[in-house]
């Protein structure tokens, strides 16, 4: 599939169509949507109505009573989620959310304004669940549910990455993410799912991680990365798997041991754990920190998430350490303890074995974020770090939407950056594009497939454009993040928009900077790139 040139894609028109939005039908153009889920994935996880169907087809082979199912599903969700009922009732359509959505900014499609995306669902609620909607119809934004409407839901609810930027600006805190999640649940109830998300969910459910690696393959991958560490640093960084009685269960997103550049972050984890002598274990069963299940339904989120506490219980660890991942932390922070339903008393309140710091903020949930953990180590002077080993990096930091607006972890990664980078090598992107106002990568929430690449590049335009700004202005050549989906999707995005920039995890930078006793003389970083001012390169760099 050929992608338009950046210059063409950046010519976004924000002019809405002449016809009213209820009359405009979605156009399923290749490159803008994800493929329908293959029936086998649905069968693996007991999802309803598995069938072979295609988004491009006119007939989506909906079950005969699809309408009743969707409406009953809506009624059920209105009863179970105050958020849904409230968000349907109180929107005033002020439009403050409109130019906050990266999909609207990237596509110019008015149905990507969160207010109107919500209205796609709200219109059905009004028609079937409010008296005024039944009576006045279109005038109050109510409309009948028909196949075109359900197709529209499918199209636009998978053009929302659940990033919550709209909810930040909404005067009533209306959260499109909540409506997208519940809308996707309703779509799934009639067998409308996307393949990329469902394949990951099914693999994770059955085998342990989104990538579907068998335990032995997973071990090979991790050990390969440990060998890489030894080759580059001369330090053995043993990988522990399913080890009973370890103090800490480490759960990381599969992206970190599966593909570049996440793998360098994983190498950083191993180096860090070895350096401080952490008594830890990974698990091949709870091998996935990420949770694509939560992208398709609250229940599926729980079905995947449940494995983490189960495994912690089986391995008799004291607490859990979570890696760098965005939506993993949205789920672990805002859902996991509630999913579990009670305090996981088989764990202990987390205490850093190195510094003795009690993580009071995790005393109920008993899971610590790697950035908190590392920041605490640095604060107590437990790490010998040489920032010069990152001197080839001019960094900006991308706050991941989930850790930003679903948790609020802003300072810890910046504190780490400050200690692993030479002074003057860190540059923030424009203030309206970072921290709580950060822009999404444009490919989160299960839509990081290949067939919708044009949409992904549009969705990530706002992020990439801010990155372009700091690249032009300060010569930024790396964008750091604490999110594995970012590390999986941003390389593709920047390759398209800002090819001069690379993506890095924060623990990778820690791994670069860690000075071990008895290590090899370091001339390269974990990516085998020459360091500035070390070894042979010294002369050459100075000249320039």
């Amino acid at each position, binding site marked *: 599939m050929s992608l338009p040139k950046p*210059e063409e894609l950046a010519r976004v028109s924000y002019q809405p169509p002449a016809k009213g939005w209820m009359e405009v039908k979605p156009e399923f153009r290749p490159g803008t949507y994800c493929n329908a889920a293959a029936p086998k994935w649905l069968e693996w996880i007991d999802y309803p109505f598995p069938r072979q169907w295609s988004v491009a087809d006119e007939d989506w082979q909906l079950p005969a009573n699809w309408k009743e199912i969707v409406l009953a599903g809506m009624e059920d969700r209105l009863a179970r989620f105050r958020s849904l009922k409230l968000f349907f009732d109180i929107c*005033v359509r002020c439009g403050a959310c409109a130019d906050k959505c990266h999909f609207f900014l990237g596509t110019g499609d008015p149905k990507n304004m969160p207010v109107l995306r919500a209205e796609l669902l709200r219109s059905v609620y009004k028609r079937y669940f409010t008296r005024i909607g039944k009576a006045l119809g279109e005038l109050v934004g109510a409309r009948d549910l028909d196949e075109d409407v359900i197709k529209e839901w499918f199209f636009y609810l998978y053009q929302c990455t659940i990033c919550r930027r709209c909810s930040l600006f909404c*005067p009533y805190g209306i959260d499109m993410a909540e409506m997208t999640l519940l809308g996707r649940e309703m779509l799934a109830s009639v067998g409308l799912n996307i393949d990329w998300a469902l394949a990951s969910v099914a693999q994770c459910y059955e085998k*342990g991680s989104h990538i579907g690696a068998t335990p032995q393959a997973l071990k090979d991958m991790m050990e390969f990365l440990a060998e890489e560490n030894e080759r580059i640093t001369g330090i053995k960084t043993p990988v522990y798997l399913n080890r009973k009685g370890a103090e800490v269960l480490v759960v990381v997103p599969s992206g970190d041991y599966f593909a570049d550049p996440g793998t360098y972050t994983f190498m950083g984890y191993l180096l860090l754990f070895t350096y401080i002598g952490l008594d830890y274990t990974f698990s091949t069963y709870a091998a996935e920190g990420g949770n694509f299940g939560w992208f398709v339904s609250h229940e599926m989120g729980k*079905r995947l998430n449940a*494995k983490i506490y189960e495994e912690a219980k089986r391995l008799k660890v004291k607490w859990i350490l979570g890696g760098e991942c965005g939506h993993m932390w949205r789920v672990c922070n805002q*859902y996991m303890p509630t999913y579990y339903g009670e305090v996981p008393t088989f764990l202990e309140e987390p205490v850093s074995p190195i510094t003795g710091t009690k993580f009071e*903020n995790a005393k*109920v949930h008993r899971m610590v974020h790697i950035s908190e953990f590392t920041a605490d180590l640095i604060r107590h002077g437990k790490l010998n770090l040489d920032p010069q080993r990152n001197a080839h990096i001019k960094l900006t930091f991308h706050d991941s939407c989930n850790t930003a607006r679903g948790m609020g972890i802003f300072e810890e990664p910046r504190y780490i950056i400050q200690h692993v980078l030479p002074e003057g090598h860190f540059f923030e992107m424009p203030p309206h594009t970072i921290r709580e106002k950060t822009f999404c990568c444009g490919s989160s929430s299960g839509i990081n497939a290949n067939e919708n690449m044009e949409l992904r590049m549009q969705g990530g335009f706002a992020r990439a*454009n801010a990155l372009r700004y700091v690249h032009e202005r300060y010569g930024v050549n790396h964008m750091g993040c604490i999110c594995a989906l970012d590390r999986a999707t941003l390389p593709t995005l920047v390759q398209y928009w800002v090819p001069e920039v690379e993506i890095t995890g924060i623990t990778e930078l820690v791994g670069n900077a860690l000075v071990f006793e008895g290590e090899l003389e370091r001339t390269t970083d974990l990516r085998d790139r020459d360091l500035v001012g070390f070894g042979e390169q010294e002369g050459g760099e100075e000249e320039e």
Partner: protein
Amino acid sequence: MNFTQRHITVALAAVLGLIAVAYVGVQGNLQLLFGVVVPYLALLIFFEGIIYRVIKWARSPVPFKIPTTAGQVKSLPWIPRTLGDKLDNPENRLWVLGRMALEVLAFRSLFRNTRTELVPDPKFPEKARLVHWSYKWLWLGAIAFHYAFLIIVLRHLRFFFEPTPKPIALLGEIDGFLQFFIPTFYLTDIIIVLALLYLLGRRLANANLRYITLASDYFPLFLIFGIVSTGILMRYFFKTDITAVKQLIMGLVSLKPVIPAGISPLFYVHLFLVCVLLAYFPYSKLLHAPGVFLSPTRNLPGDNRWALHVNPWNYPVKFHPYMEYEDQFREAMYEAGIPVEKEPETAEVEGE
């Protein structure tokens, strides 16, 4: 007629129709209906409707604690947190109170509003740049409208008490400190008119806003505009017998309704539009006023990791238990040296 024209026309016609109904009715001596029956009915619908709606919302639980965290979360004690962080990512119910107060009284989230535009930039390879800037006009328009409305309502309380309470009288004096017009000219009158014009104007001027604006959005704007303009007309231009009006209202308040003579039809139109607003409130987007208090992204603390939130309908789900997983992969795990709960049978055989 296109979408926008249709929705504006219907809303405008509705308001004009309501005005006509009241005017004609009063000309036809239906003072009792418009002066007594309708106001009582409207109040009933207003309160009953809001209570019904709030109960309806409250009956649905909040299964998950999902605040939109807009500042640094409370973590390690030495991690700096500003006052803004504490308010935008509250660590407990006390700070939530602060967040909600800011939201309700100062429109905190709207104050954060930005505007983003795509501008040409030849220096960028893609020849375009998104520019983001702080945009306070919507906040200003909204806050001006709501506070002017509030003060006007409070000023009207002088019709409901005999004698007029001191604070209400004082409020009227402050509002009317610009005494360049007789009778005293109220600042809030001009503010609310300007704010309404802005709120309507932005819906018409911006193509994307026009695209999402429904008759149910234009209607309350036109309705309130009708209320404001009839009020202003009555106060400054076509005066009505204010003593008689107070008599009518005191009659309603004391549940001994009277219809004094000498009240102009303009007043009845004004009153009728207010009644319509009250009755319309619980069935419309005006519910944002009570609704904001219940918004789960705002009224919950960001304390998920140290305070358990219980979901009342939490139910056990089917997941892949470890032993089933091990059964599936036991031999391969064993061979790869991954610890297992149960050694594979084949291994034992080999051992012998």
